[in-house]
């Protein structure tokens, strides 16, 4: 029997009178990698934010290993936001960002144990050499990796990522996925990742969900990312449909 990992049941999310997502229904086995795809405004980030309790869910439910987020405990879920949305004027060192994922609050001073744990996480993402650098002096790609390290703090069972490759160059992007897949392999973690990139979904994900405010398709990437379904997802979004196989 398949162990349930990440489950979404008839989810509807509204912002005021605007329905951002309706009727999303999917089930991802524990340890699987789900890619969340769709055009801009399709509700991809909304799905992740609903899972994290950051946006109001009008109806439906999201479960982690059969439990609500509150019952599972937020520390079991690692979240990697888009680094580009973060305020870089905040005075912080890279190591403090990672340590805040360990302690789940901003560290006034780091204990030697916290420092060692944060350094190990930074080492895992290849960022140990920028540990004491202010975040204002990190490149977009470096900051994104620091956030990946933060997301992996506490050894979470679930890792939710919102377009983690934004602003990252191609070699660094491949490194980022390699680190993520290695972590998933070692921990048996379930990964849910928002991406614009169909190729990434085809190469790395076990399952894909295609959204455009409703669920256009869900299943193995080869079955979901078909020209017909992609046309259906992108038709109403005002996008020219890229060639299937190109980056979305």
């Amino acid at each position: 029997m398949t162990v349930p990992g990440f489950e979404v049941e008839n989810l509807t999310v509204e912002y005021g009178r605007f329905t951002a997502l309706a009727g999303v229904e999917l089930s991802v086995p524990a340890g699987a990698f789900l890619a969340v795809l769709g055009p801009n405004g399709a509700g991809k980030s909304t799905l992740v934010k609903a899972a994290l309790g950051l946006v109001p869910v009008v109806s439906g439910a999201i479960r982690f290993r059969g439990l609500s987020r509150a019952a599972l405990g937020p520390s079991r879920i690692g979240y990697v936001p888009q680094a580009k949305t973060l305020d870089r004027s905040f005075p912080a060192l890279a190591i403090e960002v990672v340590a805040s994922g360990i302690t789940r609050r901003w560290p006034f001073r780091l204990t030697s144990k916290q420092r060692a744990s944060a350094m190990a996480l930074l080492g895992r993402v290849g960022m140990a050499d920028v540990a004491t650098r202010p975040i204002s002096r990190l490149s977009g790609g470096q900051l994104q990796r620091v956030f990946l390290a933060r997301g992996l703090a506490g050894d979470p069972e679930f890792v939710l990522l919102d377009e983690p490759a934004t602003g990252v160059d191609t070699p660094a992007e491949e490194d980022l996925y390699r680190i993520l897949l290695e972590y998933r392999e070692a921990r048996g973690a379930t990964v849910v990742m928002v991406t614009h990139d169909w190729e990434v979904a085809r190469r790395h994900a076990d399952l894909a969900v295609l959204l455009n405010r409703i669920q256009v398709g869900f299943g193995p990437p080869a079955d979901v990312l078909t020209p017909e379904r992609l046309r259906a997802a992108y038709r109403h979004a005002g996008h020219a449909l890229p060639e299937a196989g190109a980056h979305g």
Partner: protein
Amino acid sequence: MGDIVAMLGHGFMQRALAGGIAIGIVASFLGAFVVQRRLGYLAGGLSHAAFGGVALGILLGVAPLAVALPFTIAIAVAIHAVQDRSPISSDSAIGVFFSVSMALGIVFLALTPRYSADAFAFLFGSILSVSAWDVAAAWALLIASVASMPLWGRWAMATFDAELARADGHPTRRHDLLLFVFLAVVIVISIKIVGMVLAGAFTVIPAAAARLGCVRFSSMTMLSVAIGVASVVLGLCGSVAFNLPSGATIILVQAVIFLVMLTVRPRGT
């Protein structure tokens, strides 16, 4: 120098220093959050909003700050509610509430049958007006802020990124409201020394100066507190030595420190 030493022997100066140092610590501690959350306009707005409460107290013939405290807290809660639950931006909400409070204050003063010189002391601050009760209130506030230190890491997390803090399970809306109320209390209690016109700046400038010299939020908080205390001591002494209004002198000392930090700030900050 001799003047200052002589003045330190006076009760009013001792009260002003005792109260001022406590307020300087709390205001500049809170200022780190005010600056990083870009709440400078809120701080200025609340200090002006306090005018409505002070004027109501003068009209009713009761202690003005006893009325200004709940009045300003109510304004802070109202601003938080409007920005949280309506499409109105926070600066518009602050603008509306502080203008209405100022207008009410002017009406209350116009309705006051007797002329009150008190209003000017509250507007610009006066060390002569600092009572033993004011000192006690300032120290109670300091004790409360020391007791709130466990909240520092949560407030700082939400200041860094509110969404990440919520994803980590922090009740950020409740914490934000607490921060707004705390700011209102600090501003009202600092009015006697710095005056309503400058009470907002009192929370902003030390932290802004500290930001220029720090790459860590914890260091910024500590340096802000040090600048806050130093500016109160130097400002009060300067105010006595040169017979200047205390609030304006403290703020000018802070401005000098800010300019120095701006000039000599380390690379990377």
